[in-house]
Protein backbone atom coordinates (compact mmCIF):
# COMPACT_ATOMS: atom_id res chain seq x y z
CA UNK A 1 0.00 0.00 0.00
CA UNK A 2 1.18 3.59 -0.57
CA UNK A 3 2.64 5.10 2.55
CA UNK A 4 0.07 7.89 2.44
CA UNK A 5 -3.45 6.72 1.79
CA UNK A 6 -5.23 8.44 -1.08
CA UNK A 7 -8.40 10.35 -0.22
CA UNK A 8 -11.30 8.01 0.34
CA UNK A 9 -13.82 8.78 -2.40
CA UNK A 10 -16.60 7.49 -0.19
CA UNK A 11 -15.55 9.47 2.86
CA UNK A 12 -17.49 12.52 4.11
CA UNK A 13 -14.70 14.99 3.28
CA UNK A 14 -14.29 13.97 -0.29
CA UNK A 15 -14.86 16.92 -2.58
CA UNK A 16 -15.55 15.64 -6.03
CA UNK A 17 -15.19 19.07 -7.62
CA UNK A 18 -11.70 19.54 -6.27
CA UNK A 19 -10.58 16.05 -7.11
CA UNK A 20 -7.54 15.88 -9.30
CA UNK A 21 -6.04 12.46 -9.62
CA UNK A 22 -2.71 14.02 -10.54
CA UNK A 23 -2.40 15.27 -6.95
CA UNK A 24 -2.77 11.81 -5.48
CA UNK A 25 0.26 10.28 -3.95
CA UNK A 26 1.42 7.72 -6.42
CA UNK A 27 0.57 9.68 -9.55
CA UNK A 28 3.85 10.79 -11.11
CA UNK A 29 5.34 9.69 -7.83
CA UNK A 30 8.98 8.86 -7.60
CA UNK A 31 9.63 5.18 -7.43
CA UNK A 32 8.61 3.76 -4.04
CA UNK A 33 12.21 2.80 -3.40
CA UNK A 34 13.25 6.44 -3.75
CA UNK A 35 11.96 7.22 -0.25
CA UNK A 36 14.88 5.38 1.21
CA UNK A 37 17.60 7.20 -0.67
CA UNK A 38 18.71 5.73 -3.96
CA UNK A 39 16.41 3.67 -6.09
CA UNK A 40 15.18 0.41 -4.65
CA UNK A 41 15.68 -2.74 -6.66
CA UNK A 42 12.51 -4.15 -8.20
CA UNK A 43 12.23 -7.65 -6.74
CA UNK A 44 12.24 -10.83 -8.76
CA UNK A 45 9.34 -13.28 -9.00
CA UNK A 46 9.29 -16.80 -10.37
CA UNK A 47 8.95 -17.29 -14.11
CA UNK A 48 6.07 -19.63 -13.19
CA UNK A 49 5.00 -22.70 -15.14
CA UNK A 50 3.30 -20.99 -18.08
CA UNK A 51 6.12 -19.29 -20.00
CA UNK A 52 6.26 -21.92 -22.73
CA UNK A 53 4.13 -19.98 -25.20
CA UNK A 54 5.87 -16.69 -24.42
CA UNK A 55 9.62 -16.87 -23.87
CA UNK A 56 10.97 -19.48 -26.31
CA UNK A 57 11.50 -18.11 -29.82
CA UNK A 58 12.48 -19.58 -33.15
CA UNK A 59 16.23 -20.05 -33.24
CA UNK A 60 16.59 -19.31 -29.53
CA UNK A 61 18.82 -22.33 -28.84
CA UNK A 62 20.91 -21.76 -31.98
CA UNK A 63 23.25 -18.97 -31.05
CA UNK A 64 25.47 -20.21 -33.88
CA UNK A 65 24.09 -22.02 -36.89
CA UNK A 66 24.77 -25.73 -36.21
CA UNK A 67 26.28 -26.36 -39.66
CA UNK A 68 29.06 -23.80 -39.27
CA UNK A 69 32.47 -25.33 -38.56
CA UNK A 70 33.04 -23.47 -35.29
CA UNK A 71 29.64 -24.42 -33.80
CA UNK A 72 29.70 -26.31 -30.52
CA UNK A 73 26.88 -27.93 -28.59
CA UNK A 74 26.26 -27.17 -24.93
CA UNK A 75 23.60 -29.33 -23.37
CA UNK A 76 22.53 -30.90 -20.10
CA UNK A 77 19.74 -31.68 -17.70
CA UNK A 78 18.28 -29.43 -15.03
CA UNK A 79 17.38 -31.42 -11.91
CA UNK A 80 15.98 -30.80 -8.43
CA UNK A 81 16.92 -31.80 -4.90
CA UNK A 82 15.43 -35.27 -5.32
CA UNK A 83 17.55 -35.81 -8.41
CA UNK A 84 14.53 -35.61 -10.67
CA UNK A 85 14.66 -33.65 -13.91
CA UNK A 86 12.75 -30.37 -13.92
CA UNK A 87 10.42 -30.22 -16.93
CA UNK A 88 9.60 -26.52 -16.61
CA UNK A 89 12.91 -24.71 -16.50
CA UNK A 90 14.26 -22.27 -19.06
CA UNK A 91 17.95 -21.62 -19.55
CA UNK A 92 19.74 -18.65 -21.09
CA UNK A 93 23.36 -18.43 -22.17
CA UNK A 94 25.36 -15.31 -22.89
CA UNK A 95 28.89 -15.55 -24.13
CA UNK A 96 31.72 -13.68 -25.75
CA UNK A 97 32.92 -14.30 -29.27
CA UNK A 98 36.00 -16.35 -30.17
CA UNK A 99 38.19 -13.34 -29.37
CA UNK A 100 36.67 -13.04 -25.90
CA UNK A 101 34.61 -9.95 -26.66
CA UNK A 102 30.86 -9.51 -26.24
CA UNK A 103 28.91 -9.19 -29.44
CA UNK A 104 27.33 -5.82 -30.03
CA UNK A 105 25.50 -7.11 -33.08
CA UNK A 106 21.90 -5.89 -33.02
CA UNK A 107 19.20 -8.40 -33.67
CA UNK A 108 19.66 -11.04 -31.02
CA UNK A 109 16.23 -12.40 -31.95
CA UNK A 110 16.01 -11.81 -35.64
CA UNK A 111 19.57 -12.54 -36.57
CA UNK A 112 21.45 -13.39 -39.66
CA UNK A 113 22.11 -17.11 -39.97
CA UNK A 114 25.83 -16.46 -40.24
CA UNK A 115 25.98 -13.95 -37.43
CA UNK A 116 26.75 -14.37 -33.80
CA UNK A 117 24.91 -12.34 -31.18
CA UNK A 118 26.03 -14.36 -28.17
CA UNK A 119 22.65 -14.76 -26.49
CA UNK A 120 20.57 -17.91 -26.49
CA UNK A 121 17.49 -19.22 -24.76
CA UNK A 122 16.24 -22.79 -24.51
CA UNK A 123 13.32 -24.22 -22.59
CA UNK A 124 14.01 -27.72 -21.27
CA UNK A 125 12.05 -30.63 -22.66
CA UNK A 126 9.89 -32.92 -20.56
CA UNK A 127 13.01 -34.80 -19.48
CA UNK A 128 14.56 -31.58 -18.19
CA UNK A 129 17.06 -31.47 -21.05
CA UNK A 130 18.24 -28.32 -22.81
CA UNK A 131 20.62 -27.90 -25.74
CA UNK A 132 22.30 -24.94 -27.44
CA UNK A 133 24.59 -24.57 -30.37
CA UNK A 134 26.99 -21.69 -29.99
CA UNK A 135 30.70 -21.04 -30.34
CA UNK A 136 33.38 -21.60 -27.80
CA UNK A 137 34.20 -18.15 -26.46
CA UNK A 138 37.68 -16.80 -26.05
CA UNK A 139 38.94 -15.77 -22.64
CA UNK A 140 38.12 -12.17 -21.73
CA UNK A 141 41.61 -11.46 -20.45
CA UNK A 142 44.91 -13.09 -19.73
CA UNK A 143 44.76 -15.31 -16.66
CA UNK A 144 41.08 -16.13 -16.85
CA UNK A 145 39.44 -19.07 -18.55
CA UNK A 146 36.73 -18.93 -21.20
CA UNK A 147 33.17 -19.61 -20.08
CA UNK A 148 29.54 -19.09 -20.94
CA UNK A 149 27.31 -17.27 -18.47
CA UNK A 150 24.31 -19.51 -17.76
CA UNK A 151 21.05 -18.28 -16.21
CA UNK A 152 18.37 -20.63 -14.92
CA UNK A 153 14.70 -19.79 -14.44
CA UNK A 154 11.99 -22.23 -13.32
CA UNK A 155 8.73 -22.61 -11.53
CA UNK A 156 9.67 -22.73 -7.84
CA UNK A 157 12.80 -20.65 -8.43
CA UNK A 158 11.80 -17.28 -6.99
CA UNK A 159 14.91 -15.51 -8.25
CA UNK A 160 16.90 -16.77 -11.22
CA UNK A 161 20.26 -18.42 -10.64
CA UNK A 162 23.49 -17.48 -12.40
CA UNK A 163 26.31 -19.90 -13.02
CA UNK A 164 29.18 -20.28 -15.48
CA UNK A 165 29.99 -23.14 -17.83
CA UNK A 166 33.75 -23.47 -18.17
CA UNK A 167 35.26 -26.06 -20.53
CA UNK A 168 37.03 -29.22 -19.36
CA UNK A 169 39.48 -29.09 -22.29
CA UNK A 170 40.84 -25.74 -21.05
CA UNK A 171 42.57 -27.29 -18.06
CA UNK A 172 45.52 -24.90 -18.01
CA UNK A 173 43.35 -21.79 -18.23
CA UNK A 174 40.90 -23.20 -15.69
CA UNK A 175 43.73 -23.82 -13.25
CA UNK A 176 44.52 -20.11 -13.14
CA UNK A 177 40.98 -18.74 -13.31
CA UNK A 178 40.24 -16.48 -10.33
CA UNK A 179 36.61 -17.54 -9.93
CA UNK A 180 37.35 -21.25 -10.13
CA UNK A 181 40.13 -20.75 -7.60
CA UNK A 182 37.66 -19.27 -5.15
CA UNK A 183 35.36 -22.31 -5.32
CA UNK A 184 35.90 -25.24 -3.00
CA UNK A 185 37.69 -27.96 -4.94
CA UNK A 186 34.98 -30.51 -4.19
CA UNK A 187 32.40 -28.34 -5.99
CA UNK A 188 34.54 -26.85 -8.74
CA UNK A 189 33.61 -29.55 -11.22
CA UNK A 190 29.99 -28.40 -11.24
CA UNK A 191 31.17 -25.31 -13.14
CA UNK A 192 32.96 -27.27 -15.85
CA UNK A 193 31.26 -28.62 -18.97
CA UNK A 194 32.61 -32.03 -19.95
CA UNK A 195 33.40 -32.91 -23.54
CA UNK A 196 31.07 -35.76 -24.52
CA UNK A 197 31.64 -35.93 -28.26
CA UNK A 198 33.16 -33.94 -31.10
CA UNK A 199 32.31 -30.31 -30.44
CA UNK A 200 29.84 -31.26 -27.72
CA UNK A 201 29.90 -30.38 -24.03
CA UNK A 202 27.66 -31.59 -21.27
CA UNK A 203 26.70 -29.17 -18.51
CA UNK A 204 24.15 -30.56 -16.07
CA UNK A 205 22.57 -28.13 -13.63
CA UNK A 206 21.55 -29.44 -10.20
CA UNK A 207 19.56 -26.91 -8.25
CA UNK A 208 19.96 -28.72 -4.93
CA UNK A 209 21.44 -31.75 -3.22
CA UNK A 210 24.23 -34.04 -4.29
CA UNK A 211 26.44 -32.35 -6.85
CA UNK A 212 24.59 -29.07 -6.37
CA UNK A 213 25.78 -26.60 -8.98
CA UNK A 214 27.76 -23.62 -7.77
CA UNK A 215 25.60 -20.56 -8.30
CA UNK A 216 27.04 -17.07 -8.39
CA UNK A 217 26.39 -13.74 -6.74
CA UNK A 218 27.55 -10.72 -8.72
CA UNK A 219 26.73 -8.32 -5.93
CA UNK A 220 23.10 -8.18 -7.01
CA UNK A 221 21.71 -10.35 -4.21
CA UNK A 222 20.07 -7.46 -2.45
Amino acid at each position, binding site marked *: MPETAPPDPTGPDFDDEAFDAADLPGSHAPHP*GAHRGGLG*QTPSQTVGPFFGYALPYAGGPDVRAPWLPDAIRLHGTVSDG*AGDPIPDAIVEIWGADAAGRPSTERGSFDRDAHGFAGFGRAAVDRAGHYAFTTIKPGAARAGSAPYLLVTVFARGVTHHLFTRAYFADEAAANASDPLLARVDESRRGTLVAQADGPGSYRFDIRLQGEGETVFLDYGTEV
Partner: protein
Amino acid sequence: MQRPAPQPQTTQRQVSDEIAERHRSEVDAAASAGRALAAHPRRDFAPYRSTVLRHPTHELVRADPEEIELVSPAFGHTDVAAEEADLTIQHTGEPLGERIIVTGRVLDGEGRPVRNQLIEIWQANASGRYVHKRDQHPAPLDPNFTGVGRVITGDDGSYRITTIKPGAYPWKNHRNAWRPAHIHFSFFGSAFTQRLITQMYFPGDPLFALDPIYQSIVDPAARERLVATYDHDVSEPEWAIGYRWDVVLTGPKSTWMEPEDADHA
Protein backbone atom coordinates in the same frame (compact mmCIF):
# COMPACT_ATOMS: atom_id res chain seq x y z
CA MET B 1 16.61 -35.27 0.03
CA GLN B 2 13.24 -36.99 -0.03
CA ARG B 3 10.41 -35.51 -1.98
CA PRO B 4 7.80 -34.34 0.56
CA ALA B 5 4.47 -36.10 0.43
CA PRO B 6 1.80 -34.12 -1.37
CA GLN B 7 -0.23 -32.00 0.98
CA PRO B 8 -3.38 -31.26 -0.94
CA GLN B 9 -5.31 -30.57 2.22
CA THR B 10 -3.01 -27.87 3.54
CA THR B 11 -5.30 -24.97 4.25
CA GLN B 12 -4.85 -21.30 3.49
CA ARG B 13 -4.73 -20.70 7.23
CA GLN B 14 -1.78 -23.04 7.61
CA VAL B 15 0.06 -21.44 4.69
CA SER B 16 -0.70 -17.93 5.97
CA ASP B 17 0.64 -18.92 9.40
CA GLU B 18 3.82 -20.27 7.80
CA ILE B 19 4.24 -17.01 5.87
CA ALA B 20 3.77 -14.90 9.02
CA GLU B 21 6.20 -17.01 11.00
CA ARG B 22 8.84 -16.84 8.28
CA HIS B 23 8.44 -13.08 7.95
CA ARG B 24 8.87 -12.69 11.71
CA SER B 25 12.03 -14.74 11.76
CA GLU B 26 13.49 -12.86 8.77
CA VAL B 27 12.71 -9.49 10.37
CA ASP B 28 14.28 -10.62 13.65
CA ALA B 29 17.37 -11.95 11.91
CA ALA B 30 17.82 -8.73 9.91
CA ALA B 31 17.34 -6.59 13.03
CA SER B 32 19.83 -8.53 15.12
CA ALA B 33 22.37 -8.45 12.27
CA GLY B 34 21.73 -4.72 11.79
CA ARG B 35 20.97 -5.07 8.10
CA ALA B 36 18.03 -4.21 5.89
CA LEU B 37 15.63 -6.83 4.60
CA ALA B 38 16.53 -8.14 1.16
CA ALA B 39 14.59 -6.77 -1.80
CA HIS B 40 14.54 -10.08 -3.65
CA PRO B 41 12.38 -13.02 -2.58
CA ARG B 42 13.78 -15.85 -0.49
CA ARG B 43 14.64 -18.82 -2.69
CA ASP B 44 13.88 -21.27 0.11
CA PHE B 45 10.37 -20.08 0.84
CA ALA B 46 8.56 -23.23 1.96
CA PRO B 47 5.03 -21.74 1.93
CA TYR B 48 5.56 -21.71 -1.86
CA ARG B 49 5.89 -25.49 -2.07
CA SER B 50 7.74 -25.71 -5.37
CA THR B 51 10.74 -23.95 -3.81
CA VAL B 52 11.42 -26.82 -1.41
CA LEU B 53 13.44 -28.96 -3.82
CA ARG B 54 14.47 -26.15 -6.15
CA HIS B 55 16.59 -23.81 -4.03
CA PRO B 56 20.34 -24.16 -3.62
CA THR B 57 21.42 -25.12 -0.11
CA HIS B 58 24.95 -23.77 -0.50
CA GLU B 59 25.64 -20.08 -0.24
CA LEU B 60 26.11 -18.40 -3.58
CA VAL B 61 29.74 -17.79 -4.49
CA ARG B 62 30.65 -14.16 -4.97
CA ALA B 63 32.00 -13.54 -8.46
CA ASP B 64 33.60 -10.44 -9.92
CA PRO B 65 31.77 -9.67 -13.14
CA GLU B 66 33.90 -9.81 -16.26
CA GLU B 67 33.14 -7.83 -19.37
CA ILE B 68 30.53 -10.26 -20.68
CA GLU B 69 28.56 -9.88 -17.45
CA LEU B 70 28.74 -6.08 -17.59
CA VAL B 71 27.01 -5.83 -20.95
CA SER B 72 23.75 -7.15 -22.33
CA PRO B 73 22.62 -8.65 -25.61
CA ALA B 74 22.02 -5.96 -28.18
CA PHE B 75 18.34 -6.24 -28.87
CA GLY B 76 16.95 -3.56 -31.06
CA HIS B 77 14.03 -2.34 -33.06
CA THR B 78 14.74 -4.89 -35.77
CA ASP B 79 13.90 -7.60 -33.23
CA VAL B 80 10.49 -6.34 -32.22
CA ALA B 81 7.64 -4.89 -34.27
CA ALA B 82 5.84 -1.87 -32.81
CA GLU B 83 2.52 -3.76 -32.85
CA GLU B 84 3.87 -6.31 -30.38
CA ALA B 85 3.32 -3.76 -27.60
CA ASP B 86 -0.45 -4.02 -28.13
CA LEU B 87 -1.82 -7.38 -27.00
CA THR B 88 -5.35 -6.45 -28.05
CA ILE B 89 -4.71 -6.35 -31.81
CA GLN B 90 -3.18 -9.75 -32.42
CA HIS B 91 -6.37 -11.39 -33.69
CA THR B 92 -9.27 -10.47 -35.90
CA GLY B 93 -11.60 -9.61 -33.04
CA GLU B 94 -11.39 -7.66 -29.81
CA PRO B 95 -10.40 -9.63 -26.73
CA LEU B 96 -12.84 -9.73 -23.84
CA GLY B 97 -12.10 -7.92 -20.63
CA GLU B 98 -10.97 -4.57 -19.32
CA ARG B 99 -8.62 -2.79 -21.73
CA ILE B 100 -5.64 -1.33 -19.88
CA ILE B 101 -2.50 0.64 -20.63
CA VAL B 102 0.62 -0.04 -18.58
CA THR B 103 3.46 2.43 -18.89
CA GLY B 104 6.56 3.36 -16.96
CA ARG B 105 10.31 3.59 -17.09
CA VAL B 106 13.11 1.11 -16.62
CA LEU B 107 15.99 2.63 -14.67
CA ASP B 108 19.23 1.46 -13.17
CA GLY B 109 20.03 1.93 -9.49
CA GLU B 110 21.41 5.42 -10.16
CA GLY B 111 18.24 6.47 -11.91
CA ARG B 112 19.68 6.32 -15.41
CA PRO B 113 17.36 5.02 -18.11
CA VAL B 114 17.85 1.51 -19.42
CA ARG B 115 17.68 2.43 -23.10
CA ASN B 116 16.71 0.41 -26.13
CA GLN B 117 16.42 -2.79 -24.20
CA LEU B 118 13.99 -5.65 -24.52
CA ILE B 119 10.91 -6.17 -22.35
CA GLU B 120 8.85 -9.33 -22.79
CA ILE B 121 5.45 -9.82 -21.17
CA TRP B 122 3.00 -12.66 -20.84
CA GLN B 123 -0.21 -13.11 -18.91
CA ALA B 124 -3.52 -14.89 -18.42
CA ASN B 125 -6.63 -13.60 -20.15
CA ALA B 126 -9.48 -11.76 -18.42
CA SER B 127 -10.84 -15.08 -17.16
CA GLY B 128 -7.56 -16.11 -15.56
CA ARG B 129 -6.61 -18.65 -18.23
CA TYR B 130 -3.24 -18.95 -19.97
CA VAL B 131 -2.79 -20.09 -23.55
CA HIS B 132 -0.62 -22.91 -22.31
CA LYS B 133 -1.30 -26.58 -22.72
CA ARG B 134 -0.56 -27.32 -19.09
CA ASP B 135 -3.01 -24.72 -17.78
CA GLN B 136 -5.98 -26.82 -16.71
CA HIS B 137 -8.00 -24.05 -15.07
CA PRO B 138 -11.60 -24.56 -16.24
CA ALA B 139 -11.99 -20.98 -17.41
CA PRO B 140 -12.57 -20.01 -21.03
CA LEU B 141 -9.83 -19.31 -23.52
CA ASP B 142 -10.35 -16.15 -25.53
CA PRO B 143 -9.81 -16.73 -29.25
CA ASN B 144 -8.86 -13.07 -29.56
CA PHE B 145 -6.23 -13.01 -26.85
CA THR B 146 -2.89 -14.79 -26.68
CA GLY B 147 -1.34 -12.74 -23.90
CA VAL B 148 2.21 -12.32 -25.20
CA GLY B 149 3.90 -9.03 -26.04
CA ARG B 150 7.29 -7.42 -26.50
CA VAL B 151 8.54 -3.86 -26.52
CA ILE B 152 11.90 -2.07 -26.70
CA THR B 153 12.45 0.71 -24.17
CA GLY B 154 12.88 4.24 -25.48
CA ASP B 155 15.84 6.55 -25.01
CA ASP B 156 14.37 7.62 -21.67
CA GLY B 157 13.87 4.00 -20.57
CA SER B 158 10.11 4.25 -21.09
CA TYR B 159 7.77 1.56 -22.30
CA ARG B 160 4.05 1.41 -22.93
CA ILE B 161 1.86 -1.60 -23.51
CA THR B 162 -1.84 -2.02 -24.19
CA THR B 163 -3.47 -5.20 -22.96
CA ILE B 164 -6.38 -6.70 -21.02
CA LYS B 165 -6.46 -6.85 -17.26
CA PRO B 166 -5.73 -10.49 -16.41
CA GLY B 167 -7.94 -12.47 -14.06
CA ALA B 168 -6.90 -14.19 -10.85
CA TYR B 169 -6.50 -17.93 -11.19
CA PRO B 170 -6.30 -20.99 -8.94
CA TRP B 171 -3.16 -23.06 -8.48
CA LYS B 172 -2.42 -26.17 -6.52
CA ASN B 173 0.04 -24.93 -3.92
CA HIS B 174 -2.54 -25.57 -1.20
CA ARG B 175 -6.29 -25.91 -0.93
CA ASN B 176 -8.12 -22.92 -2.42
CA ALA B 177 -4.91 -21.18 -3.49
CA TRP B 178 -5.43 -18.24 -5.89
CA ARG B 179 -2.83 -16.07 -7.55
CA PRO B 180 -3.46 -12.31 -7.49
CA ALA B 181 -3.92 -10.92 -10.99
CA HIS B 182 -0.50 -10.26 -12.49
CA ILE B 183 1.45 -9.71 -15.68
CA HIS B 184 4.80 -11.45 -16.11
CA PHE B 185 7.62 -9.14 -17.18
CA SER B 186 11.11 -10.03 -18.39
CA PHE B 187 13.83 -7.34 -18.49
CA PHE B 188 17.39 -7.03 -19.70
CA GLY B 189 19.41 -4.31 -18.02
CA SER B 190 22.49 -2.57 -19.35
CA ALA B 191 24.50 -5.37 -17.70
CA PHE B 192 23.49 -9.02 -17.92
CA THR B 193 23.75 -9.26 -14.14
CA GLN B 194 20.73 -6.91 -14.00
CA ARG B 195 18.59 -9.52 -15.76
CA LEU B 196 15.16 -9.70 -14.13
CA ILE B 197 12.00 -11.72 -14.53
CA THR B 198 9.18 -10.62 -12.27
CA GLN B 199 5.45 -10.04 -12.01
CA MET B 200 3.50 -6.79 -11.94
CA TYR B 201 0.40 -6.66 -9.76
CA PHE B 202 -2.64 -4.40 -9.56
CA PRO B 203 -3.34 -2.07 -6.63
CA GLY B 204 -5.62 -3.18 -3.83
CA ASP B 205 -5.74 -6.88 -4.66
CA PRO B 206 -7.29 -8.76 -1.71
CA LEU B 207 -5.19 -11.84 -2.56
CA PHE B 208 -1.82 -10.21 -1.77
CA ALA B 209 -1.75 -11.28 1.86
CA LEU B 210 -2.63 -14.87 0.97
CA ASP B 211 -0.19 -15.44 -1.88
CA PRO B 212 3.06 -17.23 -0.99
CA ILE B 213 4.71 -16.16 -4.25
CA TYR B 214 4.13 -12.45 -3.59
CA GLN B 215 4.95 -12.96 0.09
CA SER B 216 8.22 -14.73 -0.72
CA ILE B 217 9.51 -11.13 -0.75
CA VAL B 218 9.89 -10.45 2.95
CA ASP B 219 10.37 -6.66 2.79
CA PRO B 220 6.95 -4.97 2.53
CA ALA B 221 8.44 -1.92 0.78
CA ALA B 222 10.01 -4.19 -1.83
CA ARG B 223 6.71 -6.04 -2.36
CA GLU B 224 5.01 -2.71 -2.92
CA ARG B 225 7.39 -2.01 -5.82
CA LEU B 226 5.70 -4.79 -7.78
CA VAL B 227 2.31 -3.09 -7.55
CA ALA B 228 1.41 -0.69 -10.35
CA THR B 229 -0.19 2.64 -9.50
CA TYR B 230 -3.46 3.72 -11.04
CA ASP B 231 -2.67 6.86 -13.02
CA HIS B 232 -5.58 8.90 -14.29
CA ASP B 233 -3.32 10.71 -16.73
CA VAL B 234 -2.52 7.40 -18.39
CA SER B 235 -6.19 6.41 -18.67
CA GLU B 236 -7.67 7.37 -22.01
CA PRO B 237 -11.24 8.68 -22.27
CA GLU B 238 -13.73 6.14 -23.64
CA TRP B 239 -10.86 3.73 -24.20
CA ALA B 240 -8.64 2.30 -21.44
CA ILE B 241 -7.70 2.36 -17.76
CA GLY B 242 -4.12 3.43 -17.12
CA TYR B 243 -1.45 2.14 -14.79
CA ARG B 244 2.07 3.30 -14.16
CA TRP B 245 4.84 0.95 -13.12
CA ASP B 246 8.49 1.91 -12.92
CA VAL B 247 11.20 -0.70 -12.65
CA VAL B 248 14.69 -0.47 -11.17
CA LEU B 249 17.44 -2.89 -12.15
CA THR B 250 20.41 -2.52 -9.84
CA GLY B 251 23.69 -4.25 -10.26
CA PRO B 252 27.38 -3.79 -10.77
CA LYS B 253 28.14 -0.58 -12.59
CA SER B 254 29.04 -1.09 -16.15
CA THR B 255 32.51 -0.03 -17.11
CA TRP B 256 31.67 -0.51 -20.74
CA MET B 257 29.77 2.11 -22.72
CA GLU B 258 28.27 2.27 -26.11
CA PRO B 259 29.86 5.18 -28.01
CA GLU B 260 26.53 7.04 -28.18
CA ASP B 261 26.12 6.72 -24.40
CA ALA B 262 29.40 8.40 -23.64
CA ASP B 263 27.81 11.63 -22.51
CA HIS B 264 24.86 10.40 -20.47
CA ALA B 265 26.48 8.78 -17.47
